[in-house]
């Protein structure tokens, strides 16, 4: 997956997608200036994040369901359904609910609803896709009519950030009655958000209507029609013909095809993602750190960045998405050890290894996606220092299954996007021993008891100690090179000139950001 699959999947981690399209193909934009026809590149499958934590689904959830807290433009937790909160001790939070909020069925939001909405993700019977976000949550209880207390196993500075993504509040009665199929087309969902669901069908699309009783600012759009178009070229033609007003179903690499469309503006903004090479350190030549450093020196990251992002992205210098680096360090991101492009240095590192003359390595990739393009470039780079990569094509689903099973991992191209500004969402996946098991995301297998202990310390650290811990972890990754960071990609949204919006990395709720352009 690395490729389309992982990227799509990854999008899940993310909130990239959107959906939409209009049902009835009226030309030029739906029924009126306050109706948006939106198209996503993938179909949403559930309006409940427990079973639909993916770009297309979560984009709709964000328009319909409120979370307890949200993120501001800088990625800092801000009030949403919780008007305020306190932290009685480092491992607990007490949220005070906003007054007078009602679900779109008319019932009042209670502290019990809010508490249950988080607690359900811990229930194995729900098998929530967001469960891994909340592993530090010990207890969630309603205290009084308007307060919710969350007790953690240990302090977790990332708790509010993950809550901003996944603590969507639904009526307890509804969620309790449908542990498995809340959010399905049959059951649907009820929220307190700016829009309510008028229709949700996997076949004919989704229709959202403005929630006139919404507690926050009134949304500019009255109605949003959302359809899915999986074929990229059909999607582009639908936008070009005016049947669709906007889509996030494009990637930065294809930007040139979109930026020239008349009457359409393509917006780019930094994505919370990172593309990297993972090297399985357990056996073979990749076990040798000199080999890994040689590979890092030999890969032309600037050329690869250009190839994969077409100018809408940039080279990565550390193993974290760029927005997470700036969330921790601000503008003062430290310089981490690096292996810049240098074939002489690469050969010198290789000479120090047990494979001075190079070696041959069989590397699987997913056909038809980004990983095919990227791995071909990497193989050409490595050939220059005598490392022969034999590319082994796999169908996308087979490759994904094989990778998640950690079956014969070697050098993998991975592109993942994340949901929160907190590095703790990323690092345990990369370097903990727990994530090196099948279904985990530590594809290098790099890890140790010491590293796990440092990850634990980092997870609970605050302030300067947190920066120091993070710098130590990223430095070790940079020196030991279980991963080679490659590049960041921008997210792209194409929007008819009849609409406009201000997008941002932390503004997940982007359907509600779109508004009619003045003067259109």
């Amino acid at each position, binding site marked *: 997956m690395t490729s389309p699959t*992982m990227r*799509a*999947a*990854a*999008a*899940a*981690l993310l909130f990239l997608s959107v959906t939409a*399209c*209009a*049902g*009835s*193909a009226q*030309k030029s934009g739906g029924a009126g200036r306050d109706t948006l026809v939106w198209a996503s590149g993938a*179909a949403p*499958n*559930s309006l409940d994040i427990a*079973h639909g*934590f*993916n770009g297309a689904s979560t984009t709709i959830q964000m328009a319909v369901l409120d979370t307890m807290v949200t993120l501001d433009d800088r990625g800092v937790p801000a009030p949403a359904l919780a008007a305020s909160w306190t932290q009685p001790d480092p491992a607990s939070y007490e949220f005070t609910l906003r007054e007078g909020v009602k679900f779109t069925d008319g019932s009042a939001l209670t502290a019990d609803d809010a508490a249950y909405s988080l607690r359900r993700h811990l229930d*194995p*019977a729900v*098998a*929530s*896709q967001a*469960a*891994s976000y909340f592993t530090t949550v010990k207890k969630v209880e309603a205290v009084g009519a308007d307060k919710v207390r969350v007790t953690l196993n240990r302090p977790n500075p990332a708790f509010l950030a993950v809550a901003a993504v996944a603590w969507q509040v639904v009526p307890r009665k509804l969620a309790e009655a449908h542990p*498995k*199929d809340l*959010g*399905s*087309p*049959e059951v649907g969902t009820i929220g307190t958000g700016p829009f309510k669901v008028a229709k949700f*069908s*996997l*076949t*004919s699309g989704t229709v959202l209507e403005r929630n006139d009783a919404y507690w926050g600012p009134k949304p500019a759009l009255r109605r949003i029609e959302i*359809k*899915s*178009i*999986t*074929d990229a*070229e*059909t999607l582009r*033609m*639908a936008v*070009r*013909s005016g*049947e669709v007003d906007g889509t996030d179903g494009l990637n930065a690499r294809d930007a040139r095809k979109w930026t020239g469309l008349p009457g359409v503006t393509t917006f780019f903004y930094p994505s919370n993602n990172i593309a990297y090479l993972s090297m399985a350190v357990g056996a073979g030549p990749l076990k040798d750190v000199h080999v890994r450093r040689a590979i890092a020196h030999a890969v032309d990251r600037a050329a690869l960045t250009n190839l994969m992002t077409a100018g809408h992205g940039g080279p990565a210098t550390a193993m974290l998405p760029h927005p997470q680096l700036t969330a921790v360090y601000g503008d003062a991101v430290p310089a981490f050890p690096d292996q810049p492009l240098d074939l002489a240095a690469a050969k010198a590192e290789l000479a120090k290894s047990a494979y001075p003359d190079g070696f041959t390595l069989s590397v699987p990739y997913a056909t038809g996606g980004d990983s095919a393009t990227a791995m071909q470039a990497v193989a050409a780079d490595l050939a220059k220092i005598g490392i022969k990569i034999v590319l082994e094509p796999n169908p*996308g*689903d*087979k490759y994904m*299954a*094989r990778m*998640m*099973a950690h079956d014969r991992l070697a050098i993998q191209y991975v592109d993942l996007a994340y949901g929160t500004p907190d590095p703790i969402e990323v690092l345990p*996946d990369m370097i903990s021993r727990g*994530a090196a098991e099948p*279904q*985990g*995301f530590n594809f290098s297998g790099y890890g140790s008891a010491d590293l796990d202990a440092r990850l634990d310390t980092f997870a609970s650290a605050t302030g300067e100690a947190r920066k120091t811990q993070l710098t130590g972890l990223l430095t070790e990754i940079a020196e030991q090179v279980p991963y080679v960071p490659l590049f960041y990609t921008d997210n792209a949204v194409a929007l008819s000139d009849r609409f406009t919006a201000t997008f941002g990395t932390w503004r997940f709720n982007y359907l509600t950001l779109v508004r009619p352009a003045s003067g259109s």
Partner: protein
Amino acid sequence: MAVLTLLARRLAAALVLLGVLSALTFGLLAASPGGPEQVLLGSRPSTAETRAAIRAEYHLDDPFPVRYARWLGDAVRGDFGVSIYSREPVTDVIADRMPVTASLAGYALLLTVAVGVPLGLVAAMRRGGALDQGITLAALVTLAIPPFALSILLLYGFAVALGWFPVFGAGETPLDRIVHLTLPAIALAGAQTAMVVRQMRAAALDLAGQDFLTFARARGLPRRRIWLGYALRNAALPVLTVGGLLLAANLTGSLFVEQAFGLHGLGALLIGAIGQKDIPVVQALVLLGGAIVVAVNLLIDLAYLAVDPRVRHGAVTS
């Protein structure tokens, strides 16, 4: 009576066929790498508890025969399970998409027959003439264009450049649906029409030298009456066969066209479900496909009986 015997025999054969189909599909899905966990877990890190709960709930650790037997037991009772991807009952998922694919298949067959049969007959009537050569050449060219390529051409020409038709979707109202499905139906019908033209022409030519046509001509019947009343009816058997098979193919195999026109039909559903290892949906679709092929073949045979007195006679006496 003979008809009833035919029906009973066909029904028995169909049951055997569907049983074999379901076991094969189930086995192939089980043997292919990966499982429904990928869809259930999403593409995010998961906890061990979640993974264990999912394995238990979907019986993923049971041996294959046990899982198949469980599915079969439910299916025989009419319970085809719940889609792993959308968590809707499989019957609802299919019922939701059936109208799109059925309208597309019916529309395409209508175009195929309405255009293919007359053109084939005309070509046969004007055998060797410029019209015949023109029709034959056009059919050859059309046959050579794959439906997905024709889809893109039609989209650029008639939806984007001229703007006569919508680019994607199936429409909501009946009229809307006809407008939306016109380009996809043409894309699907193109190559099929060419086949029917050639089939029709060949069948009609075979008849041209038959005594009953010579006799009809000798009686001084008008040419139109000879071709429509005598030749068309006699040439109908092979065309019926081809038409039925095309209908079955359209119902089960229009996925490229569905994909190109953003139609959420059965073809698109099958592709998605296989990728997601959504076993209940795949099983139900394969059974549905098998049932459609069996039913269409049965209808063709019954149509033979209606159209051709010789077959009817043979069925009764045999």
